[in-house]
């Protein structure tokens, strides 16, 4: 897969702006792009959401189906997260087996959902060892304008918050809303020289000297982290970024909670 080329002169410009505390799109270093969430975007899914961060758009759909518990977790349902960077979302995404960066997005989102215990998997168990719900969280990137991990996370927890257990369809009882416990929100930062900016655009990611994603939950805990791209962060920088991640996460959580139900 080819890498999209960002002109050297643009990279230099982005770094010079960052040095002066400015950004190409006029945002402050601590300023997130506008976020919108459209719940129930896909009627055929049991829960869905279209999340936008600036020009980045990601849709997630949740499907729940009866399945069998894993032998090592006989009292728990099954959760599967998958992200697809489909070719329509960027000139550099190609069809074929998942690229490592798609795998990275899926796994970072999956880790946060699991660690935060967004879904109490024991509540997805119908009969121990025999029958449980399998919850598929599928994420489709539609428009890649930077910061896919945050957008994928937001779409996924929004879709889960929006989901209904389709018990009636499978003759297991009445439909009920999927119980969502804790809401993890990811905050991604990029290093641009000595400046660290939140919510990088595509061009900023290309110019970045390191990327750090921090997932926070409303329990006041950090539930997942991932450093990516070429570059490095000092421990003291990371501690400061954690505070920024909590501020951002706490401001978004209320908008996800309830999944658009009134």
């Amino acid at each position: 897969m080819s890498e999209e080329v960002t002109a050297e002169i643009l990279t230099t410009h982005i770094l010079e702006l960052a040095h002066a505390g400015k950004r190409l799109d006029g945002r402050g270093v601590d300023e997130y792009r506008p976020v919108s969430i459209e719940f129930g975007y896909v009627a055929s899914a049991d829960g869905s959401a279209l999340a936008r961060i600036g020009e980045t758009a990601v849709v997630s759909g949740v499907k729940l189906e009866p399945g069998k518990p894993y032998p090592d977790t006989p009292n728990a349902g099954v959760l599967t997260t998958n992200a697809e960077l489909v070719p329509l979302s960027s000139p550099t995404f190609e069809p074929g087996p998942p690229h490592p960066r798609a795998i990275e997005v899926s796994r970072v989102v999956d880790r946060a959902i699991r660690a935060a215990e967004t879904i109490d998997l024991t509540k997805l168990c119908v009969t121990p060892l025999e029958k449980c719900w399998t919850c598929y969280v599928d994420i489709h990137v539609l428009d890649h304008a930077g910061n896919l991990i945050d957008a994928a996370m937001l779409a996924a927890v929004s879709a889960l918050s929006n989901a209904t257990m389709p018990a009636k369809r499978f003759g297991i009882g009445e439909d009920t809303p999927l119980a969502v416990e804790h809401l993890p929100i990811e905050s991604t930062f990029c290093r641009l020289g000595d400046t660290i900016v939140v919510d990088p655009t595509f061009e900023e990611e290309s110019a970045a000297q390191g990327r750090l994603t921090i997932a926070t939950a409303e329990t006041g805990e950090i539930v997942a982290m991932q450093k990516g791209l070429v570059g490095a962060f000092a421990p003291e920088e990371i501690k400061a970024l954690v505070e920024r991640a909590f501020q951002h996460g706490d401001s978004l959580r209320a908008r996800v909670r309830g999944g658009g139900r009134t």
Partner: protein
Amino acid sequence: MGSVGAKDVPQLIGPDGRRIDGRRLDELRPLRIVAGALHRADGSAFVEWGANKVMAAVYGPREVHPRHLQQNNKAIVQCRYNMAAFSVDERKRPGLDRRSQEISKVIAEAFESVIFAEEYPRTSIDIYIEVLQANAGTRCAGLVAASVALADAGIPMVDLLPAVAVGKVGGHIVLDLKKEEDNYGEADLPMALVPQSGRLVLLQMEGHMNRAELAQALDLGVKGCRDIYDRMKAALRARYSVDEPAPRGSSGEAAS
């Protein structure tokens, strides 16, 4: 982590503040590093760390395959982290699963952060990590082995990359998790340090930690990395010391 509905969690920290294998909270498992463990590779290293056995080889700078990955201004750094089918209790299906692909990606990015890649345009530096026996912390063991292998291959780098995982076990922040601690603990935080700059080039985390615990874990990990750094340098000195040269392929006296 995520041991939903699993059996009871064993007691991992005893009343004496010791861990199940008798270690203190900030104590590393026994670590043995052998620089130059293979004959055909340009550089290699073997790491035995607790019950982990990891071999790393470096080839290059060499021609890029496939060719379209070639970059005109620098070398590309490729990494393949692979677990042998027999390396874990239940046989693992051979080949790279999604976990291995993710780990390969973050390790390649970590090394690209320290290698002077611009010195070798149009080439590839290929890092192969084979986990032969796994007992938690294999990505860190792989990083340590690969880093020594890169030095053994003579690849110019800013610094070696010591790596270790810190975790939260029974409410305590502990250094260098072993399997039971990884499975039943509350958090896992692998990291790799550039000792010269004090910055981290690999950092992942899964589990639950509050801000204070995370800060403590970062500090403990950096301290652990500095200890491992000394042993990596000792392994390279043992391999290349003029007084008593260790023959290539010999295992043994190289730092324990």
